[in-house]
Each structure stands twice: as structure tokens, then as C-alpha cells.
């Protein structure tokens, strides 16, 4: 084996088995992973069982979801490989040592390919197994199903990673961009378009509505045929579906799944041998070298300059702002869904359903806020990199530094959450107390989750990470998401009963009685108190830990 793997393997060993022994941290991660694995399996089992127990249509629908899941896994892996590929192949710091050594490009490609595949897909491979494995249990496919499933998942990961890397290498060659990181913009946009096409090809909205088809036979036929027979995830889905239904095994599909990773790998290696050097040369050119920026006059205000610094670093880093396009698309699609909700076809009164959806929407908005916090706020402390030393040596307390960071993100996140809540309430034609319940609860959740993201981001800050996006797969980020979503769910559960009573009284035209008002105000105070306390504890813990992480 090429010695190029040594840093990767030693890094893994030192991280998980420091001193040759399994560390308590590793055990904790394993326990957490096992718990998540079991939870995913049980939830999947319950969901698939629900579909499966309906009727023949339920079985077909569950298999259609199976195919969609494969498609989503594949697409996400390609995008993730493309983003990691730019960093790993062209921007990695060790390129200077490796490319200057007599190591061949094929060795370098093999190392980049396998390590990128590992980093981008280990989580997807491990956590897709309980979901797809649950199908085997429901369809009573037996242990052989699992023996087909595992290689199929690995093959799909290998193909996605190979395609992602090859496309990245070609893109870096094709686009004469001085800023190599700008390619991430193209990659993000490409992913958005790809995802759009995939979703359009699958036509998910038609699946739930047989009435849209002229007759039921056509609906069944649409459901039973693979949407994209030329794409590898369809091969994996079809191969496993065949086995799930009647234990048949399609050798052609198996061969395609087995051979395609090799074909894709050699195509990538070919692209690497012809295009890497020019792409790598371009990657080393600076974007700002020839460009002069407009100077501004100096005013001695730490907060003003802190905000200015944060903003400039965000705007000038294309890997950051390019994702705003995706957020824009996300918001549009999110709100569009509310516009097309068929409320009038519901068996219960439309305004009652609208109120229920508006309440559930607090959770959805909170989920979006938590995801965006994980992407932008959680890595914000570690992103300071070695320059964090400047903050530590400056006469600025870490508490104040944390406050500035919090205030910087507070405005955009408040605007985003308030816009999402207000716009969806407007589209749902919500009037009365639900408007305020959703806005107030949503904003408390947003402000708390923001503080949690900064707190966890400081506690697990990695000032040495080459790529802050990679930090998102780390233990701290997962813990943050888990804690943030738990807080959201608990808040929504706690506010459920008073919200229900308040809305019911309003809908029936009754006065808000004293007990209802006391319960409402009490719950609100409880949520504010809990949110404030969690925010304070998170930020304080972050302040305590962040300096230690720097050394």
C-alpha cells in the first residue's frame, strides 16, 4: 500500500485509540451511534410497517419511498464529495509536501479517493443501514438481504464519491476562476439544480394523489416503474426490491453496481493525471492579489469593527455566501408548500387545520434555524483559526467577544425566523392568538438555539480545521443538533395545551378565562426562563472552554 495513507491511518488511530487503547470518548461516540442506529431502525420499522399494512398500494408506496431514499442518499453523497473534493484534492495543505515528493498522481488520487469516500460517506453508509435494513424485516427477506444490502450501499457510496471527485477535477480545469473556492459556488448551484431535477423526475406530489391520474392502473404503473433507470441508485433499489418482493436476484444490476465504481474510479484517475497540475496551480493563486479594496476611515469602536470584520469575512468567502442561494431556494420552496396546501379538502374545519399547521410550523422553522445555525454559527468560533490568538491577547474579555458574536448573528436569524413564521401564517390565513403564539415561541426558540450553537461551537471549536464545513460532521455538531432539536420539541410540547385552549376559546368567540390566561402567561414565562437559562449556560460553558481548545 502507498505510504500516502499513513497520515490518515495514524490520525484515525491517534484520535480513537490514543496510546493504543480505546478512549472513553470513543466509547461514548460508539454508544451514542448505537443508540441512534437503534432509534433509526425502530422508527423506520414502524413507518414501513404502517405503509405495508395498508393494502397493495401501501406496499408499492413504501417501495417508491425506498427508491427515493436511495436517490437522495446518492445525490447528497455526490454533492458532499464535490465540496470535500475541492478542499481535499486542491486546497489541502499536505499537497505541498506530497506533490513535491516523487509520489505518482495515481497514488495521490487513490489516497484522495479513498479518504474522501470515507469522510463523506461513513455516516451515510452506517445510518442508511438501519433504514434499508428495516425493509428486510418487514418484507421478511432474511439475512441474505443484508448481505446484498451492505455491498450495495458501499457501491453507491463509491460511485457517488468517484463521480463527485471526477466532476470536481474537471470543473477546476474548465473554469478559469482565480478563486478556486469559487468553484464551490458552481458546485452548490449544480447541486441545487440536480436536486430539483431529481425531485421533479420522481414527482412526489403525484404519488400521494391517485386521483390525478386518468385511471388507477396508470397510477399503479407509474408507481411501479423506476423513475430513473439509468442512475446507479435505481439499480441498487431495483436489485433489493426484487429480493424483497420475491427473493429474485438480478445479476445484471449486481454486475452494474460492482463494475461502475471501478469505471468511475479509473475515469477520475484519468482526469487527475491530465488536469490536476493546472488546477492545483490555479488553486494557489490568490484572489485578492491584484484587487484593491476601498479603504474606510477608522473609528475606535470595538463592536463596530468586530461586526465589520465578521461581515467582510463572510462576504469575501465564496464558500460562505454561495450557500445563501440554497437558503433562498429553501425558503421559497418552504413557503410555496404552505401556499399549495389543500386545506379545503380536509374533513375538519379549514381554520382549525390551519392553526394546527401553524403550530407545527414553529417546529419546522426551528428545525431550519437549527440547521442553519449548525452550518453558519456553530463553526464561527473555530473559523477564526490561528487569528483567535489576537483576540486572546487583546484587552477584550471573552465574554464580550461572545456577546459580539451573538449579537452579530442575532439580527439575520431573527429576521429569517420572523419572516418564515409571518409569511407562512399569512399564507395559512391565520388570525388571532396563533399568530402571536407562533411568532413569540419561534423567536424564543431561535434565540436559544443561536446561543446553543455558539456555546457548543466554542466548546468543540477546532481552530486548526482546514475546512470548517468538515467540522459539521463532528461529535460537537451532532450533539448541538440533538440538544437544540430536543429543546424545540420540549418547548412545543410544553406550550401545546395552553396554545390549544387559547385558540379554542378564540375560535368559539369566548373570553379568555383567568385560568387560561394564567396558564398561558405561566408557560410563556417558563419557556423564556428555560431559554434564557440554557442560553446563558451554553454561552458561559463556551467561554470557559474556547481558550483551552486554542492550545
Amino acid at each position, binding site marked *: 500500500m502507498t505510504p500516502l495513507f499513513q497520515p490518515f491511518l495514524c490520525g484515525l488511530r491517534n484520535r480513537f485509540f490514543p496510546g493504543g487503547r480505546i478512549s472513553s470518548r470513543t466509547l461514548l461516540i460508539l454508544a451514542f451511534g448505537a443508540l441512534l442506529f437503534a432509534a433509526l431502525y425502530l422508527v423506520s420499522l414502524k413507518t414501513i410497517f404502517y405503509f405495508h399494512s395498508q393494502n397493495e398500494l401501501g406496499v408499492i408506496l413504501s417501495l417508491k419511498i425506498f427508491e427515493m431514499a436511495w436517490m437522495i442518499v446518492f445525490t447528497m453523497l455526490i454533492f458532499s464529495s464535490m465540496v470535500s473534493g475541492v478542499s481535499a484534492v486542491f486546497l489541502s495543505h499536505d499537497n505541498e509536501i506530497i506533490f513535491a515528493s516523487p509520489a505518482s498522481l495515481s497514488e495521490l488520487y487513490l489516497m484522495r479517493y479513498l479518504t474522501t469516500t470515507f469522510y463523506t460517506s461513513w455516516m451515510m453508509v452506517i445510518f442508511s443501514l438501519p433504514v434499508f435494513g428495516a425493509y428486510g424485516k418487514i418484507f421478511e427477506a432474511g439475512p441474505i438481504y443484508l448481505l446484498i444490502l451492505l455491498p450495495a450501499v458501499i457501491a453507491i457510496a463509491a460511485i457517488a464519491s468517484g463521480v463527485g471527485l471526477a466532476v470536481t477535477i474537471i470543473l477546476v480545469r474548465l473554469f478559469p476562476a482565480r478563486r478556486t473556492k469559487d468553484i464551490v459556488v458552481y458546485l452548490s448551484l449544480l447541486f441545487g439544480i440536480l436536486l430539483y431535477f431529481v425531485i421533479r423526475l420522481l414527482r412526489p406530489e403525484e404519488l400521494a394523489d391517485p386521483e390525478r391520474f386518468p385511471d388507477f392502473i396508470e397510477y399503479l404503473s407509474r408507481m411501479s416503474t423506476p423513475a430513473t433507470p439509468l442512475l446507479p441508485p435505481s439499480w441498487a433499489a431495483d436489485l433489493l426490491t426484487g429480493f424483497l418482493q420475491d427473493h429474485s436476484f438480478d445479476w445484471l444490476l449486481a454486475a452494474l453496481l460492482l463494475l461502475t465504481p471501478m469505471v468511475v474510479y479509473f475515469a477520475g484517475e484519468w482526469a487527475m493525471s491530465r488536469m490536476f497540475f493546472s488546477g492545483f496551480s490555479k488553486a494557489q493563486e490568490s484572489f*485578492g492579489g491584484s484587487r484593491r479594496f476601498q479603504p474606510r476611515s477608522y473609528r475606535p469602536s470595538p463592536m463596530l469593527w468586530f461586526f*465589520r470584520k465578521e461581515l467582510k469575512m463572510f462576504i469575501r468567502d465564496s464558500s460562505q455566501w454561495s450557500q445563501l442561494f440554497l437558503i433562498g431556494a429553501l425558503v421559497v420552496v418552504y413557503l410555496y408548500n404552505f401556499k399549495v396546501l389543500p386545506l379545503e379538502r380536509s374533513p375538519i374545519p379549514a381554520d382549525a387545520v390551519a392553526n394546527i399547521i401553524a403550530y407545527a410550523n414553529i417546529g419546522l422553522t426551528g428545525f431550519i434555524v437549527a440547521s442553519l445555525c449548525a452550518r453558519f454559527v456553530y463553526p464561527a468560533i473555530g473559523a477564526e483559526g490561528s487569528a483567535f490568538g489576537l483576540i486572546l*491577547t487583546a484587552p477584550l474579555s471573552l465574554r464580550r467577544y461572545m456577546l459580539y458574536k451573538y449579537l452579530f448573528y442575532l439580527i439575520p436569524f431573527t429576521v429569517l425566523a420572523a419572516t418564515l413564521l409571518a409569511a407562512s401564517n399569512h399564507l395559512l390565513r391565520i388570525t388571532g392568538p396563533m399568530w402571536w403564539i407562533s411568532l413569540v415561541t419561534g423567536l424564543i426558540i431561535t434565540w436559544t438555539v443561536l446561543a446553543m450553537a455558539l456555546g457548543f461551537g466554542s466548546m468543540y471549536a477546532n481552530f486548526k480545521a482546514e475546512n470548517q464545513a468538515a467540522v459539521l460532521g463532528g461529535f460537537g455538531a451532532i450533539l448541538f443538533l440533538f440538544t437544540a432539536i430536543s429543546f424545540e420539541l420540549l418547548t412545543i410540547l410544553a406550550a401545546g395545551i395552553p396554545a390549544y385552549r387559547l385558540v379554542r376559546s378564540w375560535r368559539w368567540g369566548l373570553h379568555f378565562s383567568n385560568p387560561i390566561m394564567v396558564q398561558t402567561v405561566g408557560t410563556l414565562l417558563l419557556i423564556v426562563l428555560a431559554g434564557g437559562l440554557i442560553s446563558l449556560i451554553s454561552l458561559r460553558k463556551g467561554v470557559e472552554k474556547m481558550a483551552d481548545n486554542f492550545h
Partner: protein
Amino acid sequence: MLKIENLSKRFGHHLAVDNISLTVQQGEIYGFLGPNGAGKTTTIKMIAGLLQPDQGAIFINGASLAEQPLLCKQQTGYVPDRPWLYEKLTGMEFLQFIASLYGVAQERFRTAVTHYLTLFDLLDWQDHLIESYSHGMRQKLIMASVLMQDQPLLVIDEPMVGLDPKSARLVKEIFKQKARAGTTIFLSTHSLEIAEELCHRIGIIIEGRLRISGSMETLRAEAGRHDSGLEDIFLELTGAWELKEVIAALKANPAKPSEKQP
């Protein structure tokens, strides 16, 4: 100006700094020398407030760093061995950011920045992104960001790394001038020539302990080498004297070309 009392720092089982005490007077340039891994940077990081000591205390201008960290940091200018910078800011924006953190007045900022950017040949680059700067330019920028504040104590880790001869000469002159004006400078360096030329007193740290501290005369007397330069004294005191013999042998018997290539 700078007083260190019984300072110790341990990383796991390794005692990086072991009970160091020293005092540096106002207007004095103190050179901190030692072999690689001796504990120089750890000591400097503790003085700059980056690392918390396990034991001991640091006083800057009479104020305890542990009790009044912000006051001490306000009076200390720290230049790290590797320049910490925000790559996506321009040189001028970086200087403005640092000045605002330390509360430098507008007028002082204007005159000092122009002065140091001109001295370091960075005036034409001030509005370009730092990511396009060379290593030397980065080092000069961070040096300018510290010098513009005119703090009473400068703590400098490897001041000449990456600087061209002209800039190195310039930095040495600035340090001398600053010291004459009353600034205290605590610097660590591997360049014995710089230490010999600049420093009023020199301390040598070995395996975390301050082996010796004093003027060149004190060091010569301790090493028993009354006519020697700092290099000989350093090698003697660090127990690396046998290296001299190895170097002499290498000079006398250089490798033949056939031995260089495999």
C-alpha cells in the same frame, strides 16, 4: 516593568516551564534563548495571557496578569512566531480592527499607521487582501499592528522569521529606538547574533528551567569563556559543546560528491 515569579507550566506529565523567576526593567531588551522545546514559547504565551500558568505569577507594570488581565493586555504588544491574521481582510482593515480592540485614538492611528506602513514598504499593499501577502509581509504587518500602539511592553517571539535583510535591520533599529524611549522588550530568538547585538540581558532556558540570566559578562563568566561570543557560551551552557567538534570535523572532511547521492 515585567516581573515573573516562580512560573511553572505542565502539559500532562511534561513539565514545560519549571519555576522560572525573572525581572525586566523599563527600557531594557531582554533576550530569551534556549534550544528547541526548552519552554521559550510556553513562557512567552503565559506572559501574553494566552496560557494559564499552573503556578507562579506575572506582573506587568505592577499589575497582576491573573487579577487584571485586560489592563495587562492593554499594555502588552505581542508578536507571535507565526503571524496570526484574518486572510479575508485587507492590511488596513486588519490594522483598524486591532486598533479598535486596543482603543487606539484616531489621530494616533493615522500618524502611526502611515509611519510604519511606509517603513515596512506596505503602503502600496494596504488595501489588498492579506491572503495575497507573502510570509515576510504578514510578519511586517503584525509587527506594524503592535508597534503602532506604542505599548510599554513588547513580547516578541522570533522577531526576524521571514524578514528580508533590510526589514530585519529596520526592526533591530526600531527595537533599539523603542528601548531608548523607555519601552521594555522581551524577545525570544534563535539568532544569537541578534541577541548579542540587541539585548541588554540574556536568559537561557533549558528543559523548562532558567539556566542563567544576566549580561554578556555574566554569561561569559558562568561559561568560563572570557573572550568567547554568545554562540560558544550558548553551546557551553546548553551542554552542546561537543557539537562544535562535530561541526569542525564536518568542515575538515566534507562529504564527497559520490557520498551525497544514493
